[in-house]
């Protein structure tokens, strides 16, 4: 062999397959992949190793871990600060692979038929099953209710079919010419019992056909789907449980049967010996139970019967067969004969068929018989003053608070809160007064009444002549009565202001009636209301008018109450007149000016404040926040009196010294006789020694201050404006020359502060002399020792000329004008409350109501003087000053106070003014 091989050429060699690539030099031979490394990978290159059934069958993740090749890395952290709102909710899909979502995955995403569009066939079977179950169920027909309740969902197929003309119960397919025979017994199926005579059955069919028009086509009969309900019981096939009503209550069942015996002769035949076994009340027959001993036919025991032989549905036709409760299969051999008896004989329109059932007769309900005394027109009964009136009265009473009525007549529920409170003996609540009138003073009320009465009289006088031509409509007596009442009740009604409110002004007669009505209501005459109404009116009209009047009366009341609701009591009395003001004020200019003049820049001209820069500003400037703990920005602020002029002004030095002291007084109103405490407002020592006499005087005065004395806020305003204006003109010249004198304010200032403005005792005759005295007093001001001894009357008169400008008339006008101008000049820097226009207005008002105050003041002052008499003489003198000052304060309170309705303010006002405001 070897020789042959060697000798033979290539022809002898047989080669199989393709030759390997010749190895190149240096190339290493590839090692075969070992078995354990031969892995199955999926489309993505991931390992798809096969596991056992319990591990899922395929690998998940990275070697069945949650990690990756690089190790386990959680999803990159994304700050949720910005997108906290749209945090996504992860669904199972987020954790699934793409393969899972593919066609063959566990969650295919392809379009599939949803349940809505799935064919209904399955459901139908279920329906059948349910129907059957319904019969078998302990309460038969229960499922019918389920159907009623269940949602009616029509599948798209059904919908389409309907669009094409299909109807429920019809079969699908081309229409057929003849009416298809009902489910005839299958010829192959055996018939139990004796068969019908063929002639009869055929004949009946033929007969039926005769009445069918030739050209009518019919839809094919619906095909019953096969019931696929599984058999779960051990009963025989086709067995239905006994209908309990039939099986147990045989009598009724038999009766039921008997009803249809006539019509169901043939069916009885079908069942063979049912007739024969009549003696047996109840019988269970049927194939499921095998062949009974009494039955002759036993050859077909083992005959296989198809399901189609069994009726699976309770049909409409069924009741005819009289086989309720019997479960044996039966044939559609029904009751044609009975129907035939009253069949319509005639032509039927194309497309129509005769109704198989006659419609039930419509039940007609007779209308209810009218009662004997019924009248077709409704008359409103006259209102018999009952509870309605009671309510209205209540309303009216609440509005006026004047109407008295006996609460005993009223029921428990008709009582007002006030009445209940009275009965329970509770204290009255402090609430807003129900009407403006309570804010008014007694005197004003009286005057109001007078005015109202007068006007009402006038109105009446006008109306009465008007009425006379119309008297035919109205009986005279109620008219007289009303007039009388009006005179009687004038005062009471004035308060209510009923004459102001004329809802029926167009119809004076009606208005009159309304007024009478209201009046009588107020009087509590409930029953007499009727007579004010026009007797010529019909009952209905009267009723309507009465209604109208009620409404109008109530409306009036509400309008009244709305007016009173406009005013409310102040809640925060302490804080309203406080305002935030920079704590540190730049010191007054005057000394600086002098310093500048002397070119003494430096300490004198420099003010240093604590200033808080904004944190952000520090950040932007790259500067450390000097006050890292403070929340203040800018200059530190303190709360000050809103109406203190010094929040807005820097006044000349002497004025401040006085008013500073005043401010101190405000702050230290509680600590009266304490030695003077040093405060920020205190002037420096240097300044103090300049004017220690003044400060002494002031501190003395302050020590006398009454506790009840109100903080003289407006007073300081006024004097502040006044002095600051007058000082530069009068005193500054002196200031320059004499440093000593500059520390002391002129006398005008003291007068302005300590002198009563409304001291009416000082006669008006002195007012003329004021102007002459004014320069004189300013001169005397320079004399320090005299200031206390300046006569009261003259100084008070000066103030008088300011406040009572309108009184004093032309002569004193120039001075007052000056004062006003002064305030005006300071206007832009001042809050709007101090504008001169406002000031004038106040003066106006003040003038009007000075009389009130005058009396009041005089009395008060008298009292105070008495008290002070016991004191030291000097003190008494100062005490007088104090008294005056306090009075001045209180008076200027009324004049200068802001819009808030303090009680004191309103008492001096007429309601007209109130309303104007």
């Amino acid at each position, binding site marked *: 062999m070897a020789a042959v091989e060697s000798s033979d050429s290539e022809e002898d060699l047989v080669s199989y397959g393709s030759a390997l690539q010749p190895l190149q030099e240096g190339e290493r031979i590839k090692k075969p992949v070992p078995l354990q490394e031969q892995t199955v990978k999926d489309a993505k290159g991931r390992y798809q190793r096969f596991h056992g059934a319990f591990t899922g069958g395929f690998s998940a993740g990275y070697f069945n871990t949650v990690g990756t090749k690089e190790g386990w890395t959680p999803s990159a952290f994304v700050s949720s600060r910005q997108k906290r709102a749209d945090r996504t909710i992860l669904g199972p899909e987020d954790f699934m692979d793409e393969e899972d979502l593919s066609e063959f995955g566990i969650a295919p995403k392809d379009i599939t038929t949803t349940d809505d569009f799935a064919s209904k066939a399955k459901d139908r079977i279920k329906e059948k099953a349910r129907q059957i179950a319904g019969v078998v169920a302990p309460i038969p027909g229960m499922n019918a209710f389920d159907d009623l309740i269940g949602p009616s969902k029509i599948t798209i197929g059904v919908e389409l079919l309907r669009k094409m003309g299909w109807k429920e119960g019809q079969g699908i397919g081309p229409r057929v010419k003849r009416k298809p025979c009902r489910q005839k017994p299958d010829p192959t199926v055996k018939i139990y019992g004796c068969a019908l005579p063929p002639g009869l059955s055929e004949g009946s069919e033929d007969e039926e056909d005769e009445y069918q028009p030739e050209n009518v086509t019919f839809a094919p009969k619906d095909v019953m789907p096969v019931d696929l309900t599984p058999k779960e019981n051990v009963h025989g096939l086709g067995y239905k449980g006994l209908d309990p009503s039939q099986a147990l209550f045989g009598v009724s069942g038999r009766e039921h049967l008997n009803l249809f015996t006539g019509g169901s002769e043939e069916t009885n035949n079908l069942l063979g010996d049912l007739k024969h076994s009549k003696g047996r009340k109840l019988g269970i027959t049927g194939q499921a139970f095998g062949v009974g001993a009494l039955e002759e036919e036993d050859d077909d025991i083992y005959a296989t019967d198809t399901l189609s032989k069994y009726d699976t549905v309770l049909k409409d036709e069924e009741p005819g067969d009289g086989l309720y409760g019997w479960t044996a299969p039966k044939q559609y051999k029904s009751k044609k004969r009975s129907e035939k008896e009253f069949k319509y004989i005639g032509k039927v329109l194309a497309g129509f068929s005769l109704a198989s059932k006659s419609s039930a007769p419509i039940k007609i309900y007779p209308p209810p018989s009218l009662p004997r005394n019924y009248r077709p027109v409704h008359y409103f009964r006259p209102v018999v003053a009952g509870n309605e009136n009671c309510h209205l009265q209540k309303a009216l009473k609440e509005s006026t608070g004047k109407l008295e009525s006996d609460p005993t007549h009223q029921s428990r529920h008709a009582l007002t809160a006030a009445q209940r409170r009275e009965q329970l003996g509770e204290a009255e609540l402090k609430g807003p007064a129900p009407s403006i009138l309570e804010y008014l003073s007694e005197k004003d009320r009286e005057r109001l009444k007078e005015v109202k009465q007068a006007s009402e009289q006038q109105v009446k006088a006008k109306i009465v002549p008007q009425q006379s031509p119309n008297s035919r409509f109205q009986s005279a007596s109620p008219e007289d009565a009303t007039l009388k009442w009006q005179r009687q009740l004038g005062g009471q009604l004035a308060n209510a202001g009923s004459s102001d409110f004329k809802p029926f002004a167009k119809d004076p007669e009606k208005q009159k009636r309304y007024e009478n009505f209201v009046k009588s209501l107020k009087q509590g005459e409930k029953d007499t209301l009727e007579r004010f109404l026009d007797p010529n009116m019909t009952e209905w009209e009267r009723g309507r008018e009465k209604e109208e009047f009620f409404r109008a009366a109530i409306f009036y009341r509400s309008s009244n109450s709305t007016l009173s609701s406009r005013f409310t009591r102040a809640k925060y009395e302490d804080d309203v007149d406080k305002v935030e003001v920079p704590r540190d004020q730049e010191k007054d200019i005057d000394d600086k000016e002098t310093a*500048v003049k002397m*070119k003494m820049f430096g300490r004198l001209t*420099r*003010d240093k*404040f604590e200033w808080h820069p904004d944190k952000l500003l520090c950040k*932007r400037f790259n500067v450390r926040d000097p*006050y890292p703990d403070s929340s203040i920005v800018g*200059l530190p602020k303190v709360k000050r009196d809103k109406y203190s002029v010094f929040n807005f002004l820097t006044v000349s030095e002497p004025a401040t010294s006085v008013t500073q002291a005043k401010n101190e007084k405000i702050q230290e109103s509680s600590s009266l006789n304490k030695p003077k405490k040093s405060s920020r407002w205190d002037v420096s020592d240097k300044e103090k020694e300049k004017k220690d006499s003044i400060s002494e005087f002031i501190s003395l005065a302050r020590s006398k201050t009454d506790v009840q004395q109100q903080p003289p806020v407006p007073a300081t305003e006024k004097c502040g404006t006044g002095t600051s204006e007058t000082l530069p003109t009068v005193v500054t010249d002196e200031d320059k020359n004499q440093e000593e004198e500059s520390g002391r304010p002129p006398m005008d200032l003291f007068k302005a502060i300590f002198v009563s403005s409304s001291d009416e005792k000082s006669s008006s005759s002195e007012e003329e002399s004021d102007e002459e005295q004014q320069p004189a007093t300013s001169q005397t001001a320079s004399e320090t020792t005299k200031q206390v001894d300046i006569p009261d009357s003259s100084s008070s008169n000066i103030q008088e000329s300011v406040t009572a400008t309108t009184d004093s008339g032309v002569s004193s006008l120039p001075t007052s004008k000056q004062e006003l101008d002064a305030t005006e000049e300071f206007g832009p820097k001042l809050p709007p409350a101090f504008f001169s226009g406002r000031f004038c207005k106040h003066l106006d008002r003040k003038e009007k109501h000075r009389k009130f105050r005058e009396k009041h003041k005089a009395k008060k002052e008298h009292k105070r003087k008495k008290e002070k008499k016991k004191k030291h003489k000097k003190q008494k003198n100062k005490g007088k000053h104090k008294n005056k000052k306090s009075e001045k304060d209180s008076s200027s309170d009324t004049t200068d106070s802001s819009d808030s309705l303090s009680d004191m303010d309103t008492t001096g006002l007429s309601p007209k003014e109130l309303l104007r405001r």
Partner: protein
Amino acid sequence: MAFPRPRPARPELPRQRVQTLQCGQGAVRAARFNADGNYCLTCGSDKTVKLWNPHKGTALRTYQGHGYEVLDAAGSFDNSQICSGGADKAVALWDVTTGQVVRKYRGHAGKVNCVQFNQEATVIVSGSIDSTVRCWDCRSRRPDPIQVLDEAKDGISSVKLSAYEILTGSVDGRVRRYDLRTGQLCSDYIGSPITSVCFSKDGQCVLAASLDSTLRLLDKDTGELLGEYTGHRSTTYRLDCVLNEQDTHVGCASEDGHVYFWDLVE
């Protein structure tokens, strides 16, 4: 009416006119050099700001967007932005290259007399006739100022900034210096309405020009008067005053149409 501030002066004073720019902006309300002195800005009463190369005399760009005449302008340290304030009560921040308004700050109740950038151009400080100084943030987009300095009793005529101070001159005759570092406000009373204030280059002094035709050099820390310079006329108009680069001379515009120079130490 303000004159171009003299360039950083050499030891000898500028004595001849180098260039005249025909602005064509109506009345020129202010002319300002940029940070390095290579460009200048003119604020016209025709609502525009113009950027010039004053050495060549060429107009580089016109900034339009103010609603009324422009009263002051300033350039940022990096020449990238310009701020301007005008009689339309608005402060505008411009982008130099695009010429567009980057931001507009509204809040002043009156004409804005003066505007300044801080050193890093993060804040614009503007003084207005409404007697407030407002510090506007250029970094954030908030529309309201960082802080309002409302201590002045009258209109602010001049505002200057140092690294940590805000110097304001007001018509109420006071020079106020807000020190952010120490959290203090120093108010120096001059008496006459202040028209212009500026720091000395060494940061030790404050120069204040007032309507009594006087310049005053004050010690920053104590407020003492170091020097007084008179001779020019300044009674009506808001005219600027400067100290030169070496703090050797004091310059001020005068209503007679000249620029006056004083030797600092006389």
